[in-house]
């Protein structure tokens, strides 16, 4: 029986967390559609910023603005900060136009993280939808680096169409391993796609993990999280073993601007990773 646990604690950086430090763009990868990945390295003298899987940074484009972006790289190699970003507003669209060598201001890391330590000895079920795979990936990197400490490892990923899948090459690599179960589904596809078509929640029902000895990490649109959590409940996984990553408007990232409130919680410091039973009552409510 899984022991109940909490989302891992917040790391507050010791330097002035309100002021960004410059980092340099080492590489930009175009992912799919309007999604791209930035790889950032420090500019001579900027502090190394070790992070826990699930945390986020505030990224600043000079003169434009600042946005919270989950860190989607390997926590074991924090010398390169990896962020997968979707261009939806002024700041993220400006980031899309950055080039190798451009500078980006970084504040962070902020927030709670996926409880990867506490999941030792249990099955790990990672459920991601769309760009939600980005904050899940660091957890998978960590688990694979310490593979022997975990039971079954399962990744369930839902995307819009096969062309919208994130990290397609890595997905294929993970799928070819014998110690990870990767199940991918899309909302619709054409004939070339030989995989599953349907909702992620259907995969939860069929996935080979032990519901009584598993911890689940879910990241994606809130509707998807709701249904995935229900699916886990139906399988018999207690809500206290389910962790979800929430998203809200953020300005300060340190709990003093009030924007990211979700009921009594500040998503920037009580989250973004929350134990599901703790937030469940607000999760079902409208306009909270």
């Amino acid at each position, binding site marked *: 029986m899984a022991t109940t646990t909490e989302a891992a604690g917040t790391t507050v950086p010791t330097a002035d967390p309100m002021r960004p430090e410059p980092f340099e763009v080492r590489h930009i990868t175009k992912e799919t*559609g*309007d999604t791209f990945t930035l790889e950032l390295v420090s500019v001579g003298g900027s502090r190394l910023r070790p992070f826990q899987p699930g945390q986020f940074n505030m990224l600043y484009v000079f003169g434009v603005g600042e946005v919270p972006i989950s860190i989607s790289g390997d926590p074991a190699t924090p010398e390169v900060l990896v962020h997968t970003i979707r261009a*939806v507003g002024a700041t993220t669209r400006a980031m899309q136009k950055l080039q190798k060598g451009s500078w980006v201001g970084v504040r962070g890391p902020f927030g709670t993280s996926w409880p990867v330590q506490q999941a030792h000895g249990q099955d790990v079920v990672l459920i991601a*939808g*769309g*760009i939600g795979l980005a904050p899940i990936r660091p957890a998978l990197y960590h688990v694979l680096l310490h593979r022997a400490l975990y039971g079954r490892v399962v990744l369930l990923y*839902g*995307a*819009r169409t096969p062309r*919208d899948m994130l990290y397609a090459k890595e997905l294929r690599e993970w799928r070819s391993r014998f110690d990870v179960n990767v199940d991918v*589904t899309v*909302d*619709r*596809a*054409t*004939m070339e*796609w*030989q*995989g*599953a*078509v*349907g*909702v992620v*929640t*259907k995969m939860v029902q*069929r996935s080979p993990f032990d519901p009584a000895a598993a911890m689940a990490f879910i990241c*994606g*649109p809130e*509707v*998807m999280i709701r*249904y995935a959590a229900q699916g886990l409940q139906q399988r018999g996984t207690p809500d206290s073993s389910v962790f979800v990553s929430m998203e809200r408007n953020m300005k300060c990232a340190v709990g003093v601007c009030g924007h990211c409130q979700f009921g009594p919680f500040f998503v920037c410091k009580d989250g973004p990773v929350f134990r599901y039973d703790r937030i469940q009552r607000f999760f079902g409510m409208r306009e909270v």
Partner: protein
Amino acid sequence: MTIHSLETVLADHPFFRELSEPQLATVTGCASNVVFPPGEFIFREGQQADRFYVVREGRVAVEVFVPNKGPVTIETIEGGEVLGWSWLFPPYKTHFDARAMNSVRALALDGACLRTKCERDPAFGYEITKRFTQLVVARLEATRMQLLDLYGNHD
């Protein structure tokens, strides 16, 4: 490898669980093993819907043909799932194409035969209708989720 009788396979299947023995026997009486090679159509849109299938192994694509786009897969049915409900509701015509994506082994159930049995034995008919209604509801919920296009742009 033990070869299970049709009756055992059906009795173990979650869809037919809790049917009484005579009811199960009725269903078995209408069942047969079928195999579809990769790429073959299990049924096409607009045909007489006389059968439904319990997929045992393999993956079936439920497709709609969209002009200018070709066949679009809107759902896949995996091993253990039931394919086809149009046999139970008038006008008993299929609404989609169903194509085997790989080698598919399934149990085919004679819908026309079962329909008659449902009419004659209302208790049995109710059990069957209950199960298919649940199936349709589950598909509807999933379809609605897919319709929400949750991963799409929000503009």
